C-alpha cells in the first residue's frame, strides 16, 4: 500500500498544479473586460476574482461528482498512473496556450488529457463516447455562438437606449454593473472549475481504494482545490487577460457590461439547465459579440481565428501529450518518474520562455503590439511580480507605450512632489 500512497500523492499534487494553471488561465474570463474598461484596477480585480473563486469552491460538490463518474468509466480499470498522465497533458497544454496568450478552455484540456491517457492505457471501453460529444464537443461549438449573439443584441440595445446621454456619466453606471456581472462569473467559475479538480482527486482516491466509489470529496480536497485555484487566479494570467481585454476588440464600458452580463447569463442558464458550457469559450464569444454590436467597433479577426484554432486543437493536443505520458507511465515506477521529470522540464522551459517578454499588471491594458523602447527598458528595471509595491511612476511609465517622454516626465513628477 505504501507504493499506492506515494503514487496517489503525486497525482494529488499534479491535480493541484493543474488547478493552479486553471486559475490563472481563466482569470481573464471574469476580469479581462473589467480591467480593460477600467472598472477595477488590475490587482483589485484579480484579488476579488480569487476570493470569489475560493468561496465558490465551497458552495457545492455537484460537478465534482459528475467528473469522476461521467466521461471516463471508472470501473474499466483506470489506475492513478492514467489520471497522472492525463493531468500532465492538460497542464502542458494550458501552459503553452498561456505562453501564446490564447484563452483556451482548461476543462477541454483536462477532458482531452484524461481521454487520451485512458484510450492508451485502457482502450476505447474506458471512454463514454456519447458523453464526450454531449458534454464537450456540442457545448464547445454552441457556447461562443449563444453568448456572442446574446451579447451582440444586448450591446446594440444599450447603445441605442443610451445614445442621448453623456458618455462620461453613463460609463460609471456601466462599470458598476460590469463589476456585479464579473463577480457572478467568478463565483460560477469557482463552483465549476475548482470542482473539476476535486473530481479528479476524488477519482484518484477512488481508484486507489482510499475512498468508496461515488463518495463526496473529503473536506481537505475541497479546501486545497479551492486554495490552488484562488492562488492561480490571484497571480493572474496577464497574457490571456490582455488578449481578451484588448486583443479581440477595443472594449468600451457599455460593451464590457453587455459582454460580461451575457457571459454570466449564459454560464448560469447553461449550468442550471444541465447543458454546461465552457466558461472560456462563453466569455470569448461574448467579447466578440459585443465587438460586433458596436457601430465602428473593430474586430481583430486574426486574434479571433488564432483563438478558435487553439480551441479546436485543445482536445486532441492535450490528448496526444497525455497519450504519450500514459505510454511511458505504464512502464512502471521509472516511467512515472520519467513523466514527472519531463513534465517539470517542459514547464520550466515554458516559464523561462515567458520571462523573456513578461506581461504583468502594470501594462496589461496595452494593445498587443510590440512594446516601445521605454516600455522594454522599464520592464528590465522593474522587478518581476512585485506585488502592489510597484512605484507609481514606474507603472505610469510602463502604461504609456512607445512614449519617449513617459519616463523622464514621471521622474520629474516624483521629484517635484
Amino acid at each position, binding site marked *: 500500500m505504501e507504493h499506492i500512497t506515494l503514487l496517489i500523492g503525486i497525482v494529488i499534487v499534479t491535480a493541484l498544479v493543474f488547478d493552479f494553471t486553471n486559475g490563472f488561465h481563466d482569470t481573464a474570463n471574469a476580469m479581462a473586460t473589467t480591467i480593460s474598461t477600467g472598472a477595477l484596477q488590475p490587482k483589485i480585480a484579480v484579488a476579488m476574482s480569487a476570493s470569489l473563486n475560493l468561496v*465558490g469552491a465551497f*458552495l*457545492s460538490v*455537484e460537478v465534482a461528482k459528475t467528473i469522476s463518474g461521467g466521461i471516463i468509466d471508472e470501473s474499466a480499470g483506470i489506475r492513478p498512473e492514467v489520471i497522472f498522465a492525463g493531468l500532465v497533458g492538460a497542464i502542458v497544454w494550458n501552459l503553452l496556450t498561456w505562453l501564446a496568450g490564447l484563452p483556451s478552455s482548461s476543462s477541454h484540456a483536462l477532458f482531452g488529457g484524461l481521454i487520451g491517457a485512458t484510450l492508451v492505457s485502457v482502450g476505447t471501453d474506458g471512454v463514454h*463516447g*456519447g458523453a464526450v*460529444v*454531449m458534454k464537450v464537443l*456540442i457545448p464547445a461549438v*454552441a457556447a461562443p455562438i*449563444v*453568448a456572442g*449573439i*446574446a*451579447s451582440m*443584441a*444586448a*450591446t446594440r*440595445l*444599450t447603445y441605442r*437606449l*443610451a445614445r*442621448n*446621454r*453623456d458618455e462620461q*456619466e*453613463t460609463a460609471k*453606471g*456601466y462599470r458598476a*454593473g460590469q463589476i*456585479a456581472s464579473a463577480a*457572478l462569473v467568478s*463565483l*460560477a467559475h469557482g*463552483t465549476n472549475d475548482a470542482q473539476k479538480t476535486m473530481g479528479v482527486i476524488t477519482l484518484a482516491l477512488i481508484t486507489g481504494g482510499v475512498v468508496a466509489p461515488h463518495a463526496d470529496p473529503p473536506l481537505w480536497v475541497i479546501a486545497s482545490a479551492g486554495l490552488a485555484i484562488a492562488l492561480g487566479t490571484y497571480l493572474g494570467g496577464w497574457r490571456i487577460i490582455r488578449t481578451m481585454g484588448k486583443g479581440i476588440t477595443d472594449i468600451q464600458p*457599455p460593451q464590457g*457590461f*453587455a459582454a460580461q*452580463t*451575457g457571459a*454570466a*447569463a*449564459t454560464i*448560469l*442558464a*447553461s*449550468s*442550471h*439547465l*444541465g*447543458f454546461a*458550457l465552457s466558461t472560456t469559450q462563453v466569455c470569448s464569444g461574448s467579447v466578440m459579440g459585443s465587438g460586433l454590436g458596436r457601430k465602428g467597433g473593430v474586430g481583430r479577426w486574426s486574434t479571433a481565428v488564432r483563438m478558435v484554432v487553439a480551441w479546436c486543437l485543445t482536445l486532441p493536443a492535450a490528448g496526444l501529450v497525455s497519450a504519450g505520458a500514459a505510454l511511458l507511465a505504464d512502464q512502471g515506477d521509472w516511467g512515472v518518474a520519467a513523466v514527472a521529470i519531463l513534465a517539470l522540464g517542459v514547464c520550466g522551459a515554458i516559464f523561462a520562455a515567458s520571462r523573456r517578454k513578461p506581461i504583468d499588471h502594470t501594462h496589461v491594458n496595452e494593445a498587443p503590439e510590440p512594446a516601445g523602447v521605454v516600455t522594454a527598458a522599464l520592464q528590465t528595471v522593474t522587478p518581476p511580480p512585485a506585488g502592489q509595491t510597484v512605484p507609481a511612476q514606474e507603472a505610469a511609465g510602463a502604461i504609456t507605450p512607445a512614449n519617449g517622454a513617459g519616463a523622464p516626465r514621471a521622474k520629474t513628477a516624483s521629484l517635484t512632489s
Partner: protein
Amino acid sequence: MSIDWAALGQVFGVTLVVTVGIVGLFTVGIVGTARTTQQEGAAAGAGAPGAGARIGAYAAFAVCAAAVAYGIYLIVAA
C-alpha cells in the same frame, strides 16, 4: 448518440432573453439617472432627469439587483 436540441435551444432562448432584458433594464436605469448630452451654452442642470425618470430608473436597478440575487441563488443551490 442523440443531441439534446431541446436543452440547447432552451439555453439559447433563456440566455438571449435574460441578457438583453437585464442589459436593457440596466440601461434604462442609467439613462434615467444620467443627464442628457449638454448643448453648448445650455444652462447647467438643463439635462437633469425628472422625478418620474428617477423612480423608473431605481425600479429598473432594483430588478437588476434581484436578478443578480437570483443568479447567486442558482450558483449556491446548483
